[in-house]
């Protein structure tokens, strides 16, 4: 069964685009990355899933229930970590967390103490005196305290130092082992690459591609760099992001390796590198060309 099913979802703010015709399936138990730059429509998608805003077209289901009609019921099993954390200034961290727990009709105190001690969060501080990082930690505990079956994370690591990021990712892996589905929205590729099984790339409100991290990184593209002895050049189908500098050429190659070798054999090659590209490089390629393949 799918945890999330999005069908042709569109949302406009007046005339300006939020998202257009988004369709996605996220399987139960999956860690799914949702990646794109600021303003691409990541938060709009999430806010529609959570029924903060209503779509102009299409629909979405979470655990088989309509995300607008059955919103309150669905949220019993959702933990949401917002990108910007805004909580009640007159409360202490503890008050906020126990207030949050009251909505789930079960005792969450054990989990609250457990998570705050892992994240070294001081429960007795007032919300308005918290640093950005501590606000984020409060939000993390708030999202996890009721042991939700689906976690929706919007830019989850902002403000966390590397040590805390590691602990946070450990918690997420642990939750995932217990069966929690994680929808991980971010503009930072390395963390998506580190955490996620599959990833959807979103640009200007549309999904460009949905791919497993392995295939996105490995299968398709190789990073090729060639130094030619006397200024040779090649041009083959499947070459993208071509950069030439002096006698050397650098590009991502998604074509047939055999063709590359054969055409190189006719030229004077001084040096040759064929490497795995970083996800960033592949990502930039999708972004620059906006290619759908």
């Amino acid at each position: 069964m799918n945890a999330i099913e999005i069908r042709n979802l569109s949302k406009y703010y007046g005339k300006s685009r939020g998202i257009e015709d988004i369709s996605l399936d996220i399987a139960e138990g999956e860690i799914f990355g949702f990646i794109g730059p600021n303003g691409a429509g990541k938060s709009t998608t999430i806010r529609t899933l959570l029924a903060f805003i209503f779509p102009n077209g299409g629909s979405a289901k979470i655990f088989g229930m309509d995300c607008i009609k059955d919103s309150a019921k669905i949220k019993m099993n959702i933990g949401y970590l917002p990108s910007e954390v805004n909580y009640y200034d007159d409360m202490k961290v503890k008050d906020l967390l126990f207030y949050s727990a009251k909505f789930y009709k079960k005792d969450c105190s054990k989990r609250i103490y457990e998570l705050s001690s892992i994240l070294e969060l001081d429960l007795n501080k007032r919300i308005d005196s918290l640093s950005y990082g501590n606000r984020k930690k409060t939000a993390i505990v708030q999202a996890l305290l009721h042991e939700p079956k689906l976690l929706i994370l919007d830019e989850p690591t902002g403000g966390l130092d590397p040590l805390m990021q590691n602990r946070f990712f450990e918690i997420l892996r642990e939750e995932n082992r217990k069966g929690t589905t994680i929808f991980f929205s971010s503009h930072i590729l390395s963390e998506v690459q580190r955490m996620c099984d599959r990833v959807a790339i979103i640009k200007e409100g549309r999904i460009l591609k949905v791919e497993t991290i392995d295939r996105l990184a490995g299968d398709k593209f190789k990073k090729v760099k060639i130094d030619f002895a006397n200024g040779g050049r090649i041009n083959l189908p499947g070459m993208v992001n071509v950069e030439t500098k002096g006698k050397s050429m650098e590009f991502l190659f998604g074509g047939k390796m055999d063709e590359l070798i054969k055409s190189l054999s006719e030229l004077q090659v001084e040096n040759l590198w064929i490497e795995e590209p970083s996800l960033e490089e592949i990502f930039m390629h999708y972004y620059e060309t906006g290619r759908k393949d």
Partner: protein
Amino acid sequence: MAIFFRELARNRKSFIIWTVILIASNLGMMAMYPVVAEQAGSYNELMKKLPKEMLEGLGMDRLNFSQILDFFAYIFLYIILFGGVYAMMLGSSIISKEESDKTIEFLLAKPVTRNAIVTAKSLCVLFYLILFNGLFIAADYIVFEAIKRDAFDMNKFLLLHFGFFMLQLTFASVGLLISVFIVKAKSVYPVTFGVVLGAFFLNIVSAVSDKLENLKYLTPFKYVNPSDLVASGKIETVYMVIMVLVIIISVVLTYVLYNRKNIAV
């Protein structure tokens, strides 16, 4: 229920401040009654010398200051003005504050419907207004008993306070509705003051000018005008109907519109 108790806690401080100040002002002015009643004859003479329009505007033309209820009606007009401001501020901030503070993102991610949010918050407003008026009636009753010269009409005493409660409910419901559209704190408060003071001003204008008399249908301060109530002993049916309709329509619209609202912070 969590939201209801949370709102009780959050609005407790302002409730205490408003209640204490308004009850204290009310009692403070009532404390002048024995002196005024002593010299009621000369006060009434003095009043006759003031411009008639002004007295009508403030509803003072029919008051006999030797009667405790008449004196009370005179000062109560100003109490209900500030009580109206409090009620509307309570109503207009209770929903909008979540949005202006951006905490609504927290609340909407919880397993609650928007109906439940509006219900919990409206009930909190209702609770505080009932408590406010209960305390007011108790305080006024005690001071009336302490300083009265003759017996007073208990029905009229209660009618005046019931009118105050209805006026507050009316302003609070309009506040609820307005706050669906206007969420920024710096806009909510000016609008609130504008509406209440505007209504107060309409009451004066409608009493002074015959041409503008029909404006009285637009202002709750006319519906439950204390000196009118003391004179007639009742709230006019048409005014009662208007208030009940305004309350029902505002609350229903608040539910309908809030359910449809795109809330992006």
